[in-house]
């Protein structure tokens, strides 16, 4: 689908885009925080509760079977989309953060003092804190891949820090704060040559281009539905089957067990072992609809269109005096982090919000990046395929107005 030609009809799929904020039509440029939701996804949630709602997996009755079937079909959709080997490798969680914690917990027993784990300096807090907690428990230590001014990782430094002591490497596919696309295939490959496992945080990648976990040979790949037009409260964890089989269960509960007595409990097979309790059934099913929706538009088309938005916006923003962009890698998604002179990001964000323009200001849950640049935060605009060029013009006008007021 040619997005440029169909942009009006695509925008019509997203009811929130026609709401107004403070008397102005909403210009939503905070897509890296959460994406908006098309009618088909919203409707799938209503339809679920109107026609299907039922607890899954254990019921003999019609609704329960039907809901179970669709839930499991959704698992298959993600398996196929990611090119995983089996639906046993797809675990539904409540979000990227939950997925990462589940994986970190899996290393509780195998990691020990003297072991090393490697993180990149571009990570979201969700991909730092669970590992810090793991280090505290196990005595392992954390090394940090440094970055450069462009917001890219220093791969030589990475290669130097790899050793037989390295057990886990965790890096995001795309930085949420800067948009940098990291060379994860290389990173995974090098880590594997030292038998280290690699987790890729794909929260900012899945919405923007096609990902093939088999080709990447990632051990773990995690992301959230709410970032690719899906609902809140759903995460997806891809992990290699052999690893999941060795992992201890993360949480205990119903569904994840085979037999329970007070003396001894045996766990169910994959994927149930990692999905105790009643899952977010409506949310999972709606996530599958969201996946269908972006595949319907086509991720290649999305990438092409968003690249155009990115270059148009970058060029336009550069016309503003003293505007400095953080994250200038050649390979980046449609995210622009910037500051204007020494005006506080928060002042600008407040004023343009009043003009209906939603951007994010602050550290974007990536304080280490801010520390690197020695700034308290940035203004971040992040695009989705439903944004248009007109909205970029509005952004630039609003910024100019804010700068005038604040100088």
């Amino acid at each position, binding site marked *: 689908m040619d997005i440029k030609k169909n942009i009006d009809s695509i925008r019509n799929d997203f009811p929130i885009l026609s709401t107004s904020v403070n008397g102005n039509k909403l210009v939503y440029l905070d897509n890296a925080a959460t994406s908006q939701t098309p009618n088909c996804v919203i409707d799938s949630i209503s339809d679920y509760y109107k026609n299907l709602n039922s607890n899954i*997996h*254990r*019921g*003999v*009755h019609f609704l*329960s*079977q039907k809901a*179970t079937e669709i839930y499991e079909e959704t698992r298959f959709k993600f398996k196929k989309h990611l090119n995983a080997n089996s639906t046993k490798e797809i675990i539904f969680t409540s979000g990227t953060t939950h997925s990462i914690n589940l994986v970190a917990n899996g290393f509780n027993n195998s990691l020990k003092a003297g072991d090393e784990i490697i993180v990149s300096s571009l990570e979201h807090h969700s991909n730092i804190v669970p590992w810090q907690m793991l280090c505290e428990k196990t005595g392992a230590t954390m090394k940090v891949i440094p970055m450069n001014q462009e917001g890219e990782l220093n791969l030589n430094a990475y290669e130097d820090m790899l050793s037989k002591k390295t057990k886990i490497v965790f890096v995001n596919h795309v930085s949420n704060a800067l948009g940098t696309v990291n060379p994860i295939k290389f990173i995974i490959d090098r880590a594997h040559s030292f038998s280290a496992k690699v987790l890729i945080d794909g929260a900012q990648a899945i919405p923007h281009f096609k990902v093939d976990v088999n080709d990447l040979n990632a051990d773990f790949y995690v992301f959230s539905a709410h970032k690719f037009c899906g609902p809140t409260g759903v995460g997806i964890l891809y992990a290699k089957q052999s690893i999941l089989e060795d992992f201890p269960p993360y949480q205990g509960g119903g569904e994840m067990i*085979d037999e329970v007595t007070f003396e001894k409990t045996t766990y169910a097979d994959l994927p149930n072992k990692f999905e105790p309790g009643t899952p977010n059934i409506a949310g999972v099913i709606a996530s599958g609809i969201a996946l269908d929706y972006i595949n319907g538009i086509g991720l290649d088309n999305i990438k092409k269109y968003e690249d155009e938005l990115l270059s148009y916006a970058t060029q336009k923003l550069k016309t503003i005096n003293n505007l400095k962009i953080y994250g200038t890698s050649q390979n980046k998604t449609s995210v622009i982090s910037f500051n204007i002179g020494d005006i506080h990001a928060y002042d600008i964000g407040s004023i343009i919000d009043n003009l209906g323009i939603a951007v994010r200001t602050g550290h974007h849950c990536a304080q280490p990046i801010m520390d690197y640049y020695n700034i308290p935060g940035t203004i971040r605009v992040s695009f989705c395929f439903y944004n248009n060029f007109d909205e970029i013009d509005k952004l630039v006008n609003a910024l100019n107005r804010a700068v005038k007021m604040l100088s």
Partner: protein
Amino acid sequence: MKIKDIQEEIIDEFGIFDSWMDKYEYIIELGKNVPKINEDDKVDENIIKGCQSKVWLHAKKSNGLVQFYADSDALITKGIISLLLRVLSNQKPSDIIQANLDFIDKIGLRQHLSVNRANGLNNMIKKIKFYAIGYNNK
């Protein structure tokens, strides 16, 4: 009789029922007529996992054909097993392995019976094919 022909036969038989209640009656009747298996064969390693009711299955080979024996504590499950066994018991291992069991869909079992839910039916078929593979390699 060939696996394919037995399946046709079953599809024909089910064709005469108007409602699923009638099909149930028939399946229950079939269930009641399944010969009990030996209590000695009701051991844990013969249990098929993933069924809401207990299902035991074991197999023998004679004259190049595999015979299956199965039992369950639930009647409907037993009826379904008897259909499976009618199609797959007393066949050559290679035929069992290759069998395409489309009668299950054609008589509407998959949509209507909750065995499917917990992969019970699939697990039964898997176990039957496992036996066949085992005998085929011997």
